[in-house]
């Protein structure tokens, strides 16, 4: 998918939004790109996030937090401009362990929004080509301009 044209004010708002979330700060999450209903967020390597000391693979819970934050940001970046969102459910599939020492980037796409619910797909990658995890989620929507359910 081609990137959406840059939308500076919205991107700044998303950066501010991320910086205001204490847990996102604790994980070091930063916004990489933002489009219409699309967000890309990176999580730097941090050895405190390792889940398996034998392999040095990052814990799934940290990847899940990255995916959840990225998915929520994609919802807020949707054209219907919801003012608030919260995760209803999120399913993550772990295809492989992340390569130790690498940053992980998630890309989420909010592909459908009704008056009350937003649907999101996301993938996470460490630059190795194949994604390391995919996720699908349903999010609450408040203040959306979208009419049809």
């Amino acid at each position: 998918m081609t990137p959406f044209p840059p939308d500076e004010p919205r991107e700044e708002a998303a950066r501010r939004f991320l910086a205001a979330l204490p847990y996102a700060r604790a994980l070091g999450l930063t916004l990489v790109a933002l489009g219409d209903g699309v967000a890309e967020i990176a999580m730097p390597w941090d050895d405190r996030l390792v889940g398996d000391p034998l392999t040095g693979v990052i814990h799934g819970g940290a990847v899940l937090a990255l995916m959840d934050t990225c998915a929520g940001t994609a919802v807020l970046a949707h054209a219907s401009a919801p003012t608030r969102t919260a995760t209803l459910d999120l399913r993550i599939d772990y295809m492989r362990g992340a390569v130790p020492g690498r940053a992980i980037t998630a890309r989420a796409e909010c592909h459908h929004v009704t008056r009350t619910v937003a649907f999101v797909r996301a993938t996470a990658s460490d630059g190795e080509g194949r994604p390391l995890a995919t996720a699908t989620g349903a999010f609450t929507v408040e203040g959306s301009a979208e009419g049809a359910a």
Partner: protein
Amino acid sequence: MRPPPEPVQVVKSRRDAALERLAGGVPFVGFLGLRFDRRGDELTAVLPFREDLIGNPLIPALHGGATAGFLECAAVVELAWTQMWEDMESGRLPPDAPLRLPKTIDFTVDYLRSGLPRDAYARARVNRSGRRYASVHVEAWQDHRARLFAQATGHFLMPDGEAG
């Protein structure tokens, strides 16, 4: 004649040491500040509240990712703990070899209500545990045991089931 029962302190220290070996070696467990309360074989994961677990500072509510990580840790540790129980009790646990943890295949989290800015608790139940795969359900609550704020189900690959 039956041998005398083990002294209670011997039993307790063996189980606590095994649990510490299991959970204490996982950096992410320390990152979250997670600890495990043990009553016999029953584990309760406890997530003491900290400001940096907040997701939405306006409400304020626990970050959904923090909640999910908490649930996943509780599920993995419960599964590994259940697996090692027999070996631990019969003294067959290798004393030095690192303990291998199950790998998460998938994890589905239901967010039922906002996580409040206070301690959270979780208990996991192994619903099915085969040679290769296991299915684990986990429930989390804060003030009231019956009022869950999140629940999750995950599938896991057992450490010894990978080869086959």
